[in-house]
């Protein structure tokens, strides 16, 4: 509201929306001007996505008024929103995996053959998609199946799709959660270009530093209510956080152990998996947080999955407490005290239709069997209650289905699961993806606590500040190889990036690329593209 | 009660080795004639009895047979495919119990064109291609059942019927034979319900129970094949109503025979399934030998009850 002269493109006032049992939006408001980037922030479950889904015609509002260009509108379905020039990039990927990139981008608006309403013109479709991708500097063949792309590429396809509508209002719900620095830079360039063309952009993110770079105004929501809107230059991050959580968050400095432990808990020797991993060797010590850094698709998740027995390995040795172990299934891993917190909690972390309690005890269920052979409900409830309390899991009850919880809360449920399993080696893969600042600092604190209790922790993260802040040691990967190891003292963003782009790994070994395996010059994106087809 | 229909009790037990059987194989000692027998089904006991007769004849006349039939009597198309495949096997003759008397004709024409004699059994085909048909007159047989029913319930009251199939020839003929006879000859008898149990013992049981529940004044129950009547018997047993209903069945089978012996069931119509199977293969052998055959071989039906069930003549017609 600082620039009173700019005419609002969209206004939303008095918006109310309830889901069974949850009052998600309570008299909420929001406005958007042409040619601005308006950031929307709030804790997990604050109602950001819900508010924007109302605007995009996905949810019907219970009450309230939406105007566009000053005219009141009813947005009954996504089609109506599109017709009004509103397009949305969803927090979750919303792609048809079996279809190609081009088919995904233009779904619902396929070019037709001449004189025909039903026959598709796929040549034009691919050409249009190619143009669009090129404009975004994306090197993706529009005929690639989306299933064959990495998550980051899929996210970029989503963005391309949203842009293809040439919308006047573009809503981005956490577009950067799965992107690398370079892709984020590319995205920001696109956003700036659109802004200069007069597009109004809603930008939802938990990465508050980004807001400073890209947004013009920031609106804060809490508990389904509107809190305030401030011009970005006038706001400090601390201020915004305070508005978000309604209190000051004390961000502790990394609490590194004074004395480094010598006890090696996990040792990995020469782990290989054709086309994905090459000669992975490292050690993990008791009480240590070992950071795994690298660009998207560097193979960090693959290392974790290989150690955890989720994917087969071709060769290599794993030693737990100095003993060689055979880990062929996740069950073996859990038995040897390894827990894995996946980067994609919905797909790999949670039984979404089940309640909080079951999810929390799932990995350790056998421990809760009583003499009769039944699951001891009293103990599972007690354990779940304990974790709900210590992790501050925001759930109405233990019987709440996990699918009804917000993303950050879900993540905490997964953490609770591995705490219940009480494994002494924990692999956290992107533990703070999609998590609000409050929850994030809690998770950091948790990681430190766990390390201090003697757990050995691997933390995979694409956020360099997070890696730098949390890790005792940092392993950097590129193209399926470990390209270097840094101690906390020698680590810096620059040092990590240098190692993370040290190419010449397994892709070159495959030998069939026409690309430039040795070149460091190209954008980091290339990495995932190349290994993706391997 | 005596045999209720004119019938030539073609006892299958001891066929005189016919001239045909000795004459034909003389030239081709190595290759036995091949005669596919395609029935209307194969899982039900009735068809298994037919199969037993056909296999006996195959031994007696030194021929090869195969016996197959679709899983349900509704599957007209599957039977067509079986006949077609059988013809592709270049058989010497073909025995067929047509599910649909018209649908088969084109294939029978092909058989005729290829010089393969066709023998019908169980029920006829609307065509003069079959050199003979060994069949039961189901309409007359069911009418006999109706007469017995009327006699035993005293000419008046409520009667229900369970039939195995609503659309198959045997199902229709037995239902209509029974129903029409009652309508014509016994005005004081009402048929209160006709339901179809697919020949499935369990379903027929629950079906019969519901009918009995719905009609407390029911006096008689007719089951038109083995599965149907066993359903009725189970229902009566489970409801503890033994002796309160006149039960008349069809075909044989151990449970039905036991019920007749014990008096739970009044009696039943039996065809001559073993004889039908035997007869059709025998006719095929005769046709191959160039014999002239009567166009219709009535294989007959009989009423049996506790009084005559153990007569050797009747026993020969029954299967367990």
């Amino acid at each position: 509201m600082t620039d009173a002269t700019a005419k609002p493109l969209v206004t939303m006032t008095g918006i109310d929306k309830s889901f069974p049992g949850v009052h998600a939006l309570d008299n909420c408001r929001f406005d958007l001007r042409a040619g601005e980037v308006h950031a929307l922030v709030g804790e997990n479950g604050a109602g950001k996505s819900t508010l924007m889904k109302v605007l995009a015609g996905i949810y019907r509002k219970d009450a309230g008024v939406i105007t566009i260009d000053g005219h009141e509108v009813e947005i009954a379905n996504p089609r109506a929103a599109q017709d009004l020039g509103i397009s949305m990039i969803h927090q979750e990927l919303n792609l048809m995996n079996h279809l190609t990139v081009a088919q995904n981008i233009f779904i619902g608006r396929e070019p037709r053959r001449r004189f025909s309403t039903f026959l598709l013109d796929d040549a034009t479709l691919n050409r249009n998609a190619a143009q669009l991708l090129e404009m975004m500097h994306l090197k993706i063949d529009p005929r690639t199946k989306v299933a064959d792309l990495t998550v980051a590429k899929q996210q970029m396809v989503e963005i391309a799709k949203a842009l293809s509508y040439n919308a006047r209002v573009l809503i981005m719900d956490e577009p950067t959660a799965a992107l690398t620095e370079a892709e984020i830079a590319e995205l920001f360039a696109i956003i700036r270009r659109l802004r200069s063309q007069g597009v109004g952009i809603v930008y939802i993110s938990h990465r508050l530093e980004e807001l400073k770079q890209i947004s013009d105004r920031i609106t804060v929501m809490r508990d389904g209510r509107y809190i305030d809107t401030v011009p970005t230059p006038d706001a400090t991050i601390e201020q915004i956080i305070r508005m978000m959580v309604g209190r000051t968050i004390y961000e502790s400095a990394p609490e590194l152990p004074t004395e480094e432990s010598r006890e090696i808990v996990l040792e990995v020797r020469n782990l290989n998996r054709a086309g994905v991993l090459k000669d992975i060797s490292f050690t993990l010590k008791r009480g240590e947080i070992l950071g795994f850094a690298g660009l998207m698709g560097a193979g960090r998740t693959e290392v974790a999955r290989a150690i955890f027995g989720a994917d087969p390995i071709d060769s290599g040795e794993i030693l737990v407490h100095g003993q060689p172990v055979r880990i062929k299934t996740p069950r073996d891993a859990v038995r040897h005290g390894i827990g894995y917190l996946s980067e994609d909690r919905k797909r790999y972390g949670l039984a979404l239709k089940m309640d909080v309690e079951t999810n929390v005890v799932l990995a350790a269920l056998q421990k809760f069997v009583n003499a009769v052979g039944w699951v001891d409900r009293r103990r599972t409830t007690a354990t779940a209650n304990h974790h709900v309390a210590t992790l501050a899991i925001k759930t109405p009850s233990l019987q709440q289905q996990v699918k009804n919880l917000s993303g950050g809360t879900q993540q905490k449920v997964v953490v609770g699961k591995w705490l219940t399993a009480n494994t002494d080696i924990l692999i956290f893969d992107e533990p703070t993806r999609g998590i609000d600042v409050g929850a994030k600092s809690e998770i950091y604190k948790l990681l430190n606590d766990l390390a201090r209790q003697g757990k050995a922790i691997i933390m995979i993260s694409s956020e360099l500040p997070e890696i730098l802040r949390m890790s005792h040691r940092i392993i950097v990967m590129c193209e399926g190889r470990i390209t270097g190891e840094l101690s906390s003292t020698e680590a810096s963003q620059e040092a990590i990036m240098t190692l993370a782009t040290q190419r010449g790994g397994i892709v070159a070994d495959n030998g069939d690329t026409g690309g430039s395996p040795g070149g460091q010059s190209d954008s980091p994106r290339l990495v995932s593209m190349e290994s993706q087809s391997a | 009660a005596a045999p209720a229909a004119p019938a030539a009790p073609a006892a299958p037990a001891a066929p005189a080795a016919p001239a045909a059987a000795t004459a034909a194989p003389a030239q081709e000692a190595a290759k036995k004639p091949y005669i596919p027998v395609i029935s209307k089904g194969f899982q039900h006991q009735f068809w298994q009895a037919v199969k037993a007769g056909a296999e006996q004849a195959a031994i007696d006349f030194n021929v090869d047979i195969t016996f197959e039939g679709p899983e349900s009597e509704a599957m007209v198309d599957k039977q067509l495919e079986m006949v077609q495949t059988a013809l592709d096997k270049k058989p010497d003759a073909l025995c067929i119990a047509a599910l649909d008397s018209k649908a088969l004709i084109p294939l029978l024409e092909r058989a005729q064109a290829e010089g393969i004699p066709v023998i019908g059994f169980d029920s006829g085909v609307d065509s003069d291609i079959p050199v003979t048909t060994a069949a039961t007159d189901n309409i007359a047989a069911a009418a006999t059942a109706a007469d017995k029913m009327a006699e035993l319930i005293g000419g008046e009251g409520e009667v229900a019927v369970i039939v195995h199939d609503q659309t198959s020839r045997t199902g229709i003929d037995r239902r209509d034979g029974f129903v029409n006879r009652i309508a014509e000859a016994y005005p004081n008898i009402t048929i209160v319900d006709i339901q179809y149990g697919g020949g499935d013992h369990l379903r027929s049981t629950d079906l019969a129970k519901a009918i009995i529940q719905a009609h407390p004044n029911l006096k008689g129950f007719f089951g038109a094949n083995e599965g149907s009547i066993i359903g009725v018997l189970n229902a009566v047993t489970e409801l503890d109503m033994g002796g309160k209903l006149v039960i008349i069945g069809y075909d044989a089978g151990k449970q039905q025979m036991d019920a007749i012996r014990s008096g739970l069931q009044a009696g039943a119509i039996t065809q001559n399934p073993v004889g039908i199977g035997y007869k059709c293969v025998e006719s095929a052998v005769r046709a191959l030998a160039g014999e002239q055959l009567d166009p219709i071989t009535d294989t007959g039906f009989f009423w049996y009850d506790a009084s005559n069930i153990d007569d050797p003549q009747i026993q020969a017609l029954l299967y367990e």
Partner: protein
Amino acid sequence: MSLETTSSIPFSRTIFRSDATQKILAFAGLIVLFVVFSLASPNFLTFNNIVGILLATAVNGLLALGVTYIIITGGIDLSVGTVMTLSAVMTGVAIVMWGLPIPIGVLVGIGTGALAGLVNGLTISKMKVPPFIATLGVMMMAKGLALVISGARPIYFNDAPAFREIAMGSLVGMIVPDYKIPNAVLVLFGAAIIAHLILTKTVMGRYNLAIGSNEEATRLSGVNVDRWKTAIYALGGAFSGIGGVIMAARLNSAQPALGAGYELDAIAAVVIGGTSLSGGEGTILGTIIGAFIISVLTNGLRILSVPQEWQMVITGAIVILAVYADIIRRRQK
């Protein structure tokens, strides 16, 4: 790290979607049918007819119990009907042909079902064949084997008269002479209680739900999903085996040609009972209600002497409506 104090969101509101109300409503369809048929025919609400309905539910109910587990994993089982038949035949073989004692024969029957379920389970979990196809194949094989083993002839239990008592005797009647409820009904209810306890109280039940909800996440939680899935299919098969024993006892014979098509009734019972075909949720109580809805409907239409072709039409419509009512109810909750 106690954050509770900071959260001001009124989550308590979610508590109103009470599960108890939910369960009472699930009975609604059944009760509506009961009332309608009772008003339409005086012969419906008689003791004998109610016993008839209970008895008619026994076999389908048992099959449906097993199918419930399998549908909860997100799978399907088309083989229940013919596996039931094969179990009945094997029971007959054991008792009549091999002359084994009845309890052993019963175990052979149940074991046959479990074995067939095991084949389903291994095909699905080890060979990764989709459940629809795996169980379709086993359905055909069981059908064929039942005929092969029995020689396509029924096996009668006349020489072991006690066998029939398993289904048709009446323990209840021995205690309360006026209420001769056949044992088959007790077996159904007993099996349902055990099935309920397995689903809600045991590790197996919990894993069953978890696998149906998210198989991969369950695997990544260190659960041996393949083994548990196999076990669940075997358990489902065991219920078909019990169904086979009860059917054989009721018919006092093992009928080898029965069983085709029974799977659809069993699956319908499960789905009408509110178990989601996409897996991850379901209750035994629901399945039992679903099985009774089907039996009551079939029985009621027969009692009313509705022509059979119309019975089919009406049943088809009501199956859809029953599930639709369940959907509406959930949406409102």
